[in-house]
């Protein structure tokens, strides 16, 4: 099944229908149960007690919380007659009531979050009036329990399943050799032009794969892009210099460049000291690389990988020797400096997209496309939600109010 534009449109339509089918499951799963309140009309100097106290288990918790509800005392009519309600709790058999909370007048519920799973409790509520309390009204004993599954998280489960499913689907799809479409990455053009400049001026290329080891996904992306640079270097016999801060990165870098020279049919032109280890220490490494830049005056510098505070010094020295600089990293703190100091910067995920685009490696391609599904759903939700919310707010209309609430409910997590 050829997965270019046409059938790929089907996958998105399938997701959209699935997305809307959530409609029925979610909104029916938690219909809000509304209670009917009855008014009680007796009054005495001592504030009379709240009535009709009920305690219920708080749904989908770890069995550690219960909700106490009561009817407001008739003196609670905002004339300052009462100063609040105090809630007491004691274990069902023992009669030692301990105060667990005080709430302001006008509130008729309290969530007790320190119960033990499986122990039965009795709750009592009194009204307070500067120190004096009404007699305590007790609730039925209840034992807070736990439900098997937290149904409030049904939406999280379904959306998570959709995204995880699409990641796995695209990875297996790519493994079966199907071509997955990725848009043209502007950064790759900039890399080719930068190499062109080096060939024209006959000066060396400096390649720096960041200062992290091979376990960092940014370093892996940097080495993939090294493959493309190395191919052109081998064809036009440009001098490449790659100082590294990690020994494993050195070995992988050497293999990549050697492979490029072999496939260009000039294995003898390759030498191991194109890639050389300097030191693991951040500032020691940067001081040495500065020395190389000033001495060799490279035409083009590549900074592709994980960088920290040393990105500034590299970009500055590269600028002072007049080199064209191409950077690429996913470190948020360093991106602003690279964008301001370098000629072109691959921002965050563009680095990974470029690496997936070049390597055509199923894992990278598949997860990139899977993440795109996630972004697509986020974009749909924001677009529909904002549209619904704005219309609902400005002109009302039950459909829009429902759409706004549904979008909110779809992405709300209560645990």
């Amino acid at each position, binding site marked *: 099944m050829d997965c270019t534009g046409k059938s790929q449109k089907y996958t998105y339509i399938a997701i959209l229908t699935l997305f809307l089918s959530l409609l029925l499951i979610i909104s029916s799963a938690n219909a809000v149960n509304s209670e009917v309140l009855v008014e009680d009309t007796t009054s005495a100097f001592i504030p009379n007690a709240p009535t009709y106290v009920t305690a219920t288990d708080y749904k989908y918790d770890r069995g550690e919380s219960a909700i106490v509800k009561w009817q407001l005392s008739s003196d609670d009519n905002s004339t300052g007659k009462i100063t609040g309600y105090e809630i007491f709790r004691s274990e069902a058999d023992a009669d030692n009531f301990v105060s667990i909370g005080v709430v302001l007048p006008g509130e008729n519920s309290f969530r007790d979050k320190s119960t033990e799973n499986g122990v039965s409790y009795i709750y009592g509520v009194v009204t307070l009036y500067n120190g004096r309390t009404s007699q305590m009204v007790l609730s039925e004993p209840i034992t807070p329990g736990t439900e098997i599954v937290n149904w409030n998280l049904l939406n999280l489960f379904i*959306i998570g399943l959709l995204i995880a499913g699409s990641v796995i689907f695209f990875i297996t799809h790519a493994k079966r050799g199907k071509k997955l479409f990725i848009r043209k990455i502007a950064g790759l053009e900039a890399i080719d032009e930068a190499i062109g400049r080096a060939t024209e001026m006959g000066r060396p290329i400096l390649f720096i794969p960041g200062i992290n080891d091979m376990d960092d996904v940014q370093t892996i992306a940097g080495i993939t892009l090294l493959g493309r640079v190395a191919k052109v270097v081998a064809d036009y016999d440009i001098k490449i210099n790659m100082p590294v801060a990690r020994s494993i990165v050195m070995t992988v870098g050497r293999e990549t460049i050697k492979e490029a020279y072999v496939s260009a049919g000039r294995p003898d032109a390759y030498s191991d000291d194109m890639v050389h280890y300097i030191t693991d220490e951040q500032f020691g490494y940067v001081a040495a690389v500065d020395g190389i830049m000033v001495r060799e005056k490279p035409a083009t510098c590549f900074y592709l990988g994980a960088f920290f505070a040393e990105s500034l010094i590299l970009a500055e020295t590269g600028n002072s020797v007049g080199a064209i600089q191409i950077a690429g990293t996913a470190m948020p*703190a360093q991106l602003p400096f690279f964008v301001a100091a370098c000629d072109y910067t691959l921002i965050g995920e563009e680095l990974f997209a470029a690496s997936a685009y070049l390597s055509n490696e199923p894992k990278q391609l598949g997860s990139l496309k899977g993440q795109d599904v996630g972004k697509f759903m986020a974009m749909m939700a924001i677009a529909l939600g904002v549209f619904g919310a704005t219309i609902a707010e400005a002109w*009302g209309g039950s459909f829009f109010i429902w759409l706004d609430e549904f979008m*909110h409910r779809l992405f709300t997590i209560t645990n």
Partner: protein
Amino acid sequence: MEVFGLWLAAFFTLGIISFLYKDNPWYKFSEAVFIGISAGYWFVVSFWDNLYAKFYLGVTANDDYMLFVGAVLGAMMILRLAPNIGWISRWPLAFVVGAISGFYLMNYFSSNVMKQVQNSVIPLFSADYGQSMFTESFGTIAGKIVIAAGTFTGLIYFFFSKEHKGAFGGAAKVGIWVIMITFGASFGYTVMSRMSLLIGRMDFLFGQWLGMIK
């Protein structure tokens, strides 16, 4: 002792600052002391606060024997240094990687995706039904439009399954502008942070050490 300490601290501070002139023995010595002291600091504190306080006291005082499993896995991790049975360290490593992956997957998904999308669903003009549309200040309304549109176009810029052409390309252009202003903000804040560090050290040199500042 405190006076000698102040001078020693000043010696090391100036030693590190000498790197600005060039990489010299004074800097290399200070840096070596720094690497040794910080490795030793972490080494001692992790022993007293974790291996002693949590594991040893956990087992002896609160007889929580399951902690032994953690200690065994930890010992396997240290065995990585041993040449021949170094591979055993893959088990605790697998445990750590599995725990981090499972934990990150749920946390990042619910706090950084679900919650953020939910909060981006906002009415652009929050007038109550029937009232005039612009009850709020211009800044807030413009802000809400930027929040919704900025997040939407930002996501479009990082969308790789569709060519950035036509209207889609235009939206991506707006997206990169929003992201560039965001980078400008973090650029300004990072400069603020670095400058505060320098001011803190100068306050030490000229204040605590030389006593020239009140």
